[in-house]
């Protein structure tokens, strides 16, 4: 090749310079040389002759070798039949293990249902003296986190994979040279885990353990330390209280231990004696409608900044003294009456507050003390350990970090960058810390900011213990081998502290530690069992153990409440205030990566996939409900909080204090898997410190201009009221505001003679406890009318057929239902109900088989609420059955309305004809089970549609068909459980009992509001419930012969409280 300067096309510098070797190679490019010669080394090539056959030989050998080599290390992933079947596993039969659900300070004793070695469902543990078999939505949904595709699958260093040995070495070295080590965690209720932290304290110098709660309870804890010398939470006995006053504590939804409190609370809310009906009175003082507030008899509305003033006002009325703090007149008037009612019920009352202000909590302690509630409704025998966080300690840590005083930071199961209220400062501080290690399950804002991630297993893969309340111990046992290369944080700590030196691969070493810890520390505290092994086995079997103690713990009140009275914050005189609250499904973001909880509607707002600004709504006195600034549901607004602007959609909220708005915490996560990332607005950045305590409201807030509508307004309920009453401006009379709003003034004439719009519908019957007899008479009259109508028919029915064998039915106690939504998530888990995502929910395509309708009734300004779980009513004269052209839905001899998915063509005629609107159609391929691959609908823009991967599918219940697109589905009364129960009874040669068949919603319910059973079993629990005169059937006059009975909602509202 010539060196031609004018050469216009050249490939490399060799091309331009006259490189002979290169020129030769270029010439050779297509030379007829055999592959073996070109690729193999010369000797081989010459000995084999180098032809096509040799190439194939090499290829064959190479492939085979690679296959064998690769095959050695691959774990078997697909199901294969057992060669030797383990004794405890019978294919097709579920095994239950007792364990505990612990997430931060949240606790629930659970039974884990496993099928063929894989956990698929969580049930409550009836043996627990704390939760009594109840669960919450969060507990029910926790099993899905196990199969989260975003979980850490191995330890990480700077976002790259690292193996445990290197991680331990590097972290150990860093700790060894660190001047100060801080361990930051959420509240840890495990005694053994705390012990592992102690080993760290022993092993390195200057180690400190700091606990904080994502929603702070520091004010309450510090107040208790001040008043009683104990930094803990006492035992609240909501069951012993006749008057319950809660200042913004959502004890049924989110406050400390809602499952436990709900269970106790409902005991006094049930009507036991119809002739002399009694129930407790619950008064909630709050800003927005909380789950507890919606269950309250009376609500007193105050602005968020007035909470302190309200507590102080009640304090002066009960304890004495005076306060100059301004409070709205209505609240004052009501609190006067509340005070006198509390005094009457002294010793049988309970006052709690959700405030995170120490002085306010001291006043609450003083009120309870004066009322003599300590020792009665509040005891110290089993103090709760479920919240231990300290705002001061957290703030100190952030300060230290930013001053460069922290060399190593271990963050355990916490997300301080997002939820500590110090977000930015914390993140900046972390950059100054030499070594940061996160021990966590799922990536979070914090874990991505850490250098090391010591991936932890899910709680269902872990060993552990818990002592949520003093003396109440629980064990956590794994129900599946760790799915990924993860290690419990306890074991990591033990490794780093040198407790575990050898056997790095032995994953059971924390188990040994736990067992010996229990042998040394717990076993001696009891005297029921003589040998440790029987004690251990028993605890493991039951999941819980209670250490009986004869002594009654007494704590003497010695609070400085007069000083506290002076410290209470002054209410702001701002026109608009915002209250931040923890929503029932989301917590403060801990649960936002869980699609089930994301899709679960907020029980009060009835919205999902995002936080919605609750704005007050009022009746204009003529014919309209008007929201704040004339805003309507779904309007997108700018909310300016301090100097930050959030764009959020609006939801009109009845019972929201005028001049305030509310917005839920826990959204706007920046790193929370596909479900939580980028959904909603993050308010933690607006949480301020007030006297060192995180304050969950803001007084500098503006709501400005609608920017149109929220694109996907994912609300599941559009009509919220059931005949709320308000004053007519003209006549001054109390009128049905719902009706007036429906019949607008323009059409006044047209609607003459129009009889009722909502109130006369036989959907909800409610009563005040004082006129229960009248309400019952009214309801019975209506039921008689319906029966009379139903007799005027030519269809005789087949009632006689259902008198033999089983006849399944259900009873829902509306008085016991608090609307928490545990049943709805349990139903999703049990029945493989798909998650559809924000867009589909906004198109009313949600798939829930069981929903909880929420209606407001009574005073439009300050209404009462009724929650109505609504599922297939399994009508014996079902309108859906006779219209199906292909017999896809039909009636079983046991009274079940059955759905045959294979037969369903998808005309949706049944759904149209269902008066209860409980049938759900698979509009798109929500389960990714379709034959058309193009139909998989992403839930929140994820690449692989949710549910399409094998990991997520492990959560599916193998007893329930996964429905494909184009078919109708609905509540089956958990027919798979019925079948299982019947088989069990048959095998044991006995009659079926109540316990054999319990529906998923029934077992999930913390208050026992749902009873499922055989209506023909006259001895059964259900038959006893069906005898109650409080019962009614929804839409009885339609004559569909529903199998679900509801019982009347009774409240104990004091109408005189506001006058």
């Amino acid at each position, binding site marked *: 090749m010539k060196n031609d300067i004018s050469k216009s096309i050249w490939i490399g510098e060799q091309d331009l310079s006259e490189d002979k070797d290169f020129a030769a190679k270029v010439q050779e490019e297509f030379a007829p040389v055999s592959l073996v010669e070109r690729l193999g080394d010369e000797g081989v090539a010459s000995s084999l002759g180098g032809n096509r056959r040799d190439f194939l030989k090499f290829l064959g050998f190479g492939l085979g070798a690679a296959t064998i080599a690769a095959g050695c290390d691959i774990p078997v992933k697909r199901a294969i039949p057992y060669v030797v079947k383990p004794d405890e596993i019978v294919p097709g039969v579920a095994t239950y293990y007792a364990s505990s659900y612990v997430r931060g300070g949240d606790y629930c004793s659970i039974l884990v249902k496993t099928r063929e070695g894989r956990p698929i469902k969580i049930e409550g543990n009836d043996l627990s003296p704390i939760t009594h078999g109840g669960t919450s939505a969060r507990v029910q949904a926790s099993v899905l986190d196990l199969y989260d595709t975003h979980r850490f699958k191995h330890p990480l260093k700077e976002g790259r994979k690292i193996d445990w040995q290197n991680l331990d070495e590097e972290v150990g070295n860093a700790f060894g040279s660190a001047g100060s080590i801080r361990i930051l965690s959420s509240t840890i209720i495990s005694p053994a885990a705390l012990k592992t932290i102690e080993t760290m304290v022993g092993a390195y110098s200057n180690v400190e353990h700091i606990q904080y709660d994502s929603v702070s309870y520091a004010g309450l804890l510090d107040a208790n330390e001040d008043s009683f010398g104990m930094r803990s939470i006492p035992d609240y006995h909501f069951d012993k209280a006749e008057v319950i006053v809660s200042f913004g504590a959502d004890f049924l939804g989110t406050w400390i231990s809602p499952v436990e409190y709900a269970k106790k609370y409902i005991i006094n809310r049930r009507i036991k004696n119809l002739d002399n009906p009694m129930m407790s009175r619950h008064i909630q003082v709050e800003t927005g409608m909380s789950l507890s507030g919606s269950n309250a008899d009376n609500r007193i509305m105050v602005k968020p900044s007035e909470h302190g003033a309200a507590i102080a006002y009640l304090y002066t009325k009960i304890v004495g003294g005076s306060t100059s703090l301004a409070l709205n007149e209505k609240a004052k008037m009501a609190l006067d009456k509340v005070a006198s009612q509390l005094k009457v019920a002294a010793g049988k009352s309970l006052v709690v507050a959700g405030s995170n202000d120490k002085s306010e909590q001291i006043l609450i302690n003083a009120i309870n003390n004066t009322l003599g509630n300590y020792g009665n409704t509040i005891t110290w025998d089993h103090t709760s350990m479920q919240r231990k966080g300290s705002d001061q300690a957290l703030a100190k840590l952030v300060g230290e970090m930013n001053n460069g005083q922290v060399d190593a930071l271990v963050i355990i199961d916490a997300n301080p960058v997002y939820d500590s209220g110090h977000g930015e400062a914390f993140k900046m501080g972390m950059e100054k810390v030499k070594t940061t290690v996160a021990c966590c399950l799922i990536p979070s804002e914090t874990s991505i900011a850490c250098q090391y991630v010591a991936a932890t297993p899910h709680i269902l893969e872990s060993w552990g213990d818990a002592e949520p309340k003093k003396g109440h111990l629980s064990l956590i046992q794994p129900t599946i081998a760790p799915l990924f290369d993860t290690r419990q944080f306890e074991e990591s700590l033990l490794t780093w502290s040198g407790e575990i030196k050898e056997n790095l691969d032995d994953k059971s070493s924390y188990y040994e530690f736990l067992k010996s810890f229990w042998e040394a520390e717990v076993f001696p505290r009891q005297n029921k069992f003589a040998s440790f092994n029987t004690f251990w086995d028993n605890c493991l079997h039951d999941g819980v153990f209670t250490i009986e103690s004869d002594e009654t713990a007494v704590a003497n009140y010695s609070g400085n409440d007069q000083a506290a009275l002076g410290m209470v914050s002054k209410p702001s005189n701002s026109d608009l205030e915002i209250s931040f609250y923890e929503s029932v499904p989301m917590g403060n973001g801990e649960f936002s990566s869980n699609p089930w909880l994301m899709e679960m509607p907020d029980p009060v707002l009835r919205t999902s996939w995002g936080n919605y600004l609750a704005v007050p709504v009022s009746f204009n006195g003529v014919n309209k409900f008007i929201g704040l600034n004339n805003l309507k549901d779904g309007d997108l607004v700018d909310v300016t909080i301090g100097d930050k602007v959030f764009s959020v959609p609006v939801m009109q909220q009845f019972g929201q204090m005028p001049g305030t708005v509310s917005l839920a915490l826990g959204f706007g996560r920046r790193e929370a898997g596909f479900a939580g990332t980028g959904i909603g607005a993050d308010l933690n950045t607006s949480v301020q410190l007030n006297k060192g305590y995180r304050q969950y409201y803001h007084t500098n807030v503006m709501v400005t201009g609608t920017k149109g509508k929220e694109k996907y307004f994912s609300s599941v309920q*559009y*009509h919220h*009221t*059931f005949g709320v009453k308000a004053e007519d401006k003209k006549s001054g009379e109390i009128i049905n505001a719902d009706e007036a709003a*429906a*019949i*607008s003034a323009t*059409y006044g004439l*047209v*609607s003459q003679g*129009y*009889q009722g*719009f*909502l109130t*006369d*519908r036989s*959907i909800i019957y409610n009563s005040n406890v004082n006129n229960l007899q009248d309400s019952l008479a009214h309801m019975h009259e209506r039921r008689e009318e319906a029966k009379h109508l139903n007799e005027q028919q030519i269809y005789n029915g087949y009632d006689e057929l259902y008198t033999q064998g089983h006849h399944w039915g259900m009873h829902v106690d509306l008085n016991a239902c608090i609307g928490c939504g545990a049943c709805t998530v349990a139903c999703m888990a049990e029945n493989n109900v798909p998650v559809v995502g924000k867009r*589909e929910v906004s*198109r*009313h*395509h*949600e798939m829930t088989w069981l929903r909880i*309708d929420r209606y407001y009734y009574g005073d439009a300004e300050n209404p009462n609420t009724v929650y*109505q779980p*609504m599922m297939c009513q399994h009508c014996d004269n079902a*309108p859906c059955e*006779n*219209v*199906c*052209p*292909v*017999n896809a839905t039909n009636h079983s001899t046991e009274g079940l309305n059955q759905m045959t998915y294979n037969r*369903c*063509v*998808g*005309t*949706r*005629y049944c*759904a*149209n*004809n269902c*008066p*209860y*609107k409980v*049938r*759900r*159609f*698979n*509009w*798109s391929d929500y389960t990714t089970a*379709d034959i058309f691959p*193009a*139909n998989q*609908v992403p839930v929140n823009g994820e690449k692989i549609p949710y549910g399409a991967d094998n990991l997520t599918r492990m959560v599916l219940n193998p007893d329930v068909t996964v429905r494909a*697109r*184009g078919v*109708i589905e609905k509540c089956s009364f958990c027919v798979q459980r019925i079948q299982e129960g019947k088989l069990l009874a048959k095998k044991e040669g006995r009659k079926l009992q109540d316990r054999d068949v319990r529906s998923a919603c029934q077992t999930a319910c913390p208050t026992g509001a749902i009873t499922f059973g055989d209506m023909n079993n006259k001895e059964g629990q259900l038959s006893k419930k069906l005898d109650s005169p409080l019962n009614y059937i929804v*839409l009885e006059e*339609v004559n*569909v012969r529903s199998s679900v009975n509801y019982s009347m909602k009774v409240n104990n509202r004091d109408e005189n409280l506001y006058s």
Partner: protein
Amino acid sequence: MGAVVSSIREPLITGSKTYHQITEDLVSPTEKTPSVSWTLGFIVSVSLLLFGVFCILWTIWHGIGTWNLNRTVGWGWDITNFVWWIGIGHAGTLISAILLLFRQKWRTGVNRAAEAMTIFAVICAALFPGIHVGRAWVVFYFFPYPNTRGPLWPNFNSPLLWDLFAISTYFTVSLLFWYTGLVPDFATVRDRAKGFRKKVYNFLSFGWTGSAKHWQRWEALSLVLAGLATPLVLSVHTIVSFDFATSVIPGWHTTIFPPYFVAGAIFSGFAMVQTLMLVTRKVLKLEDYITIGHIESMNKVILVTGTIVGVAYLTELFVAWYSGYVYEQAAFFNRALGPYWWAYFGMMFCNVVSPQFFWSKKIRRSVIWTFFLSIVVNIGMWFERFVIIATTLARDYLPSSWSYYSPTWVEIGIYLGTLGLFFTCYLIFTRVAPVVAIAEIKHILKSSGDQYAKGYKAAQQEASRIESVK
């Protein structure tokens, strides 16, 4: 056809036609190359049809989720269109069957096109039950045939199954009736044709020779089919109305539906016949066969049925009020004054108010007015079905489940596609078959041709004389 006609009746054929002229006028459109307007219309129709096909495939591939139906409103534009198209078909059957039995001679001018319209409308309608289902590929589960799935039979209690039988029967009888009428006309076309065209028409006319025996059998068959079709005019829409009437949903569950639906169907059907015929007579220059008298007769039917429909609407409202049943009251209250009030008032205006214009003879005999009002009525009848289906479902028993529904582009596309299908079929029909029944028109020429109706002219002159004297 009886030959005795009152001499003062308005002639049904104008222009002093001879038999040959009639043949010439009616057969020639099938023999000429298509006009520009026809070609343009055909292109538009086929485009719409193709877009509809695309939307249907889109629906089947991606699922009903591409429509905006929801947990509360399970049927929307799909079933609205279904009922609307079925209703439109009814006029053809009424004209060909009931008017034949009643010896209404004016039917001969419009029956052929109306019957064709029936068939095409039923095809459009039948499409919707097939594609609105979630799993279109198992729609054969509807059919009761011995099968290997049990054998598993359909649910004979379901009104949807009754629909299947009603519509398939209706389609079969309508097709036979239409084709029977076409046989002698195809023979006429054949007799004028040459070459391959002649062979085709010879085949289509089943070798018709026009012998007396042929005519005798043809007349007998026509009568038999008319007898069969007559109950169908009443039964098909009755059964369609059962889809709603047998349900438990307030606003659907009413006994008034069968007569109300039948009247509505004839109402909308005649409106569609007017729309089609006014264009056809203009384009194909058939003013001599489809006279103002024909148009007026049909307008009278529209006036009567429109008023029946109006009475039905008012009866529904009255019964809702009188029943004392809150759900029924709320359903009708919501229809009129709820979020879909515009649909209700649209329906009321188009269906009850607009036909009242036809009390005026001038408007009745005005081509422009008739065309305009026929479109209005068609829109109104579409609204009626939408109001009954979507509005009712959107707010039924439980307030918690109330929702709102509006269609997606796919649903609108499918509707446009059926319009495309309908007009494509109709345009092809005008090219291959005589749009007016030649044989039947020739039957009445001697009794109703204007050159034979001298009495009418005299009466008209007398009337205008009296008018001028006044």
